[in-house]
């Protein structure tokens, strides 16, 4: 901070500021326009030939190293024929793909492609073979969902890995189920459809689309209702509660004990 304030009268400061301002405005405009486009592309048939073509170009440049030319797979990555648009939208849209490095599990990171590019990649993969498509808006409308039914479904199907409060949990050998707070409804739906990483697949014959909507409604309700009892301590249950009593609780007690037994000098 100090360095920044010292440099504020630098001759190039105004130029730098202008540059930052321009980038910000341009970036925001680009983001705003591409959001509109993504909404338009939710209907699977909307993929045009040029989308597929552009998607293939992006694929060859960014994905083919591991997934192979024509997405047929290689030693480093699986074939994407039949993976479907939903899988691409999830993996690329949450930044998991392209993978930063190989490891037990691809981690979420800022998305590398904008919504238009993601849509084009999805169009290309969808063109390779039939697979789950990006969900329609009616199944993402959480106001339609039944949250108590969603809660029951979540506890039966999801909580064993994702934790009852959707705070995430451990799997074997460094793999894990991530926390679900802040994940877009569309991505939650797609994850259930396609079973990314180590997640099992919950297709429509397993959990029908309306039930998926209930689950998403339950999760979104949990996020918006707040924490009834104060700080949630990560919603990790008795471990973080035990940690708190042995740290803050004990420190407060010892502090008052030392105070009570101290002598005025």
């Amino acid at each position: 901070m100090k360095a920044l304030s010292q440099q504020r009268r630098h001759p190039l400061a105004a130029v730098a500021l202008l540059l930052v301002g321009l980038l910000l405005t341009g970036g925001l405009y680009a983001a705003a326009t591409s959001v509109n486009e993504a909404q338009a592309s939710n209907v699977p048939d909307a993929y045009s030939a040029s989308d597929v073509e552009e998607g293939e170009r992006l694929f060859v440049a960014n994905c083919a190293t591991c997934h192979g030319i024509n997405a047929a797979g290689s030693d480093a990555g699986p074939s994407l024929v039949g993976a479907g648009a939903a899988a691409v939208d999830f993996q690329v849209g949450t930044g998991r793909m392209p993978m930063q490095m190989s490891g037990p599990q691809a981690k979420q990171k800022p998305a590398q492609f904008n919504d238009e590019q993601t849509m084009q990649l999805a169009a290309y993969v969808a063109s390779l073979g039939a697979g789950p498509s990006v969900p329609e808006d009616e199944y993402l409308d959480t106001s339609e969902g039944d949250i108590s039914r969603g809660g029951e479904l979540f506890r039966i199907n999801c909580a064993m890995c994702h934790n009852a409060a959707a705070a995430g949990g451990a799997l074997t050998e460094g793999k894990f189920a991530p926390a679900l707070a802040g994940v877009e409804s569309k991505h939650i739906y797609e994850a259930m459809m396609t079973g990314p990483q180590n997640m099992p697949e919950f297709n429509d014959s397993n959990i029908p689309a309306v039930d998926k909507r209930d689950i998403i409604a339950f999760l979104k309700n949990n996020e918006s209702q707040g924490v009834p009892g104060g700080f949630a301590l990560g919603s990790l249950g008795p471990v973080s509660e035990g940690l708190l009593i042995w740290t803050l609780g004990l420190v407060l007690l010892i502090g008052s004990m030392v105070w009570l037994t101290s002598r005025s000098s």
Partner: protein
Amino acid sequence: MSTQSLEPKYTEAQYSEVDQYQPATRTGRISNYVDQRVGGTGLVREFGRKVFPDHWTFMFGEVALYSFLITVVSGAFLTFWFDPSMASTQYEGSYAPMQGVEMSTAYATALELSFDVRGGLFMRQLHHWGALMFVMAMAVHMLRVFFTGAFRKPRELNWVVGCALLVAGLGAGFTGYSLPDEVLSGNGLRIIDGMLKAIPMVGTYISFFLFGGEFPGDEVIPRLYSLHIFVIPAVILILIAVHLFMVVVHKHTQYPGPGRTERNVVGYPIGPVYAAKAGGFLFVVFGVLALLAGLFQINALWNYGPYDPSPVQAGTQPDWYIGWFDGVLRLMPGSIGDISLEFVLPTPWGGNSVALPVLIPMIPIAVLLLGLFVWPFLEAWITGDKKEHHVLDRPRNAPGRTAFGMAMMVWYFVMWGAASSDLVAVQFSLSLNDVIIWLRVLFFLGPILAFIITKRICLALQRKDREIVLHGNEAGVIEMLPHGEFREKHNRVNDYELFTLVAYESPEVTPARPNAKGKVSLLEKSRAGLNRVFFEDRVAPVSREEYLEALSHDHHESSAALPAAASAQLESSKH
């Protein structure tokens, strides 16, 4: 039959004078009225003048007592609404994500307490934080007692009472944790059920008796409720009464210091200052708990859902004090390589399976718990010490015990930590499998390393104490002597500090002795072996002779140094 003494203690005239006595002030009249009817003077004389040494580490027992009281009071509040029935009902309360869900009445009333009773959630959280603090305060109190040697004669039996209190506290906690009948605590009960069923031959029967049929049944919550609100609190209250009575009988221990001996207690009398402090401390503890209960959510039971035996949720753990039971089960492999640890015991009626992966983890738990109860007797046997001890050990001055205590703590920590292996793996981006493997290694190596390291640290601290006694504290001032030598100035400690540093016992090894028949029994040999582990490395306290010699040395170096050196030079130049 004994008769009261025939000789009256006082004359009739004295008795009637007491009867006729009218105090002048209002306060006097009230206290006289009370005193003549309940004999308050005697009580105040006995208890009000009890002397307690002032040290903050002596207050953990009080915390345990107060948090227990707070837990009882807040628990009484909860009983007004909570209904421990396992009858099925449909939730119609105000928590939206549960509306219309079928659940037991116990869970429904626990939700009602949390969302529809004014102050109910606060009281629930106060009760739960109070329970965590109750067991924590007992644990820390016991660690203090252990590491200062306060359990030694004559207090061994009170240590046993304390251990029983700890076990009762664990029981109170676990039965309470299970009451809301949601998935988290149901998983805990399932583990208990599994442990019971693992007991060869009779396990299934015991489980069926407890649960009133096949798990989970519809009996267990009301039964746990009876234990939780009636039986266990009554046991705890009785044990507390015995514990405190024995504290009064034994008088309090004190840390070593000038004027403190095995025959006295130096401190403040209970009345009035200490009573005021202790009474105030009740409110401090209450304040801390209220703060936690108001700010931090505990046991968010609305997340877990009504109990259903099929799902086990991620991050399922018991409350901290039961954690080590859970952890040791997680550490135990189900099979070693291809060798299964489960086998069938052939019996005339067909065979009973023996599940060693569940039974073996009970061994360290039993060893630690039993060891806790018998430790005072075990240590007295090893050391052969039959003296009364009212002056405490500084932990460093009992390196063997301190090291052993640390070893057992590390052992406990490994089991405790293993209960959170999954959360450790996720939070620190580790592999769950690796975490378990490391904890398994530490389970065996940790206590040994802790013993060796702690013992070395204790001995080093004792040597440091000797150094301070003999040479004083480094003053941080470099002096140059007239002949050019540089030296750091040392300040001698005052007599008060000196006393604490030199007044301790450092027993030597007592080798195995033959018994009356002239034979050295195997038991005596093992006693001597343990005794050697305890005492073979020792740092003796500074003796009077050593101290006086150091003082005279001091004298030479500082004030006499120059004249001596100067005169020596003069001497040599003459020749």
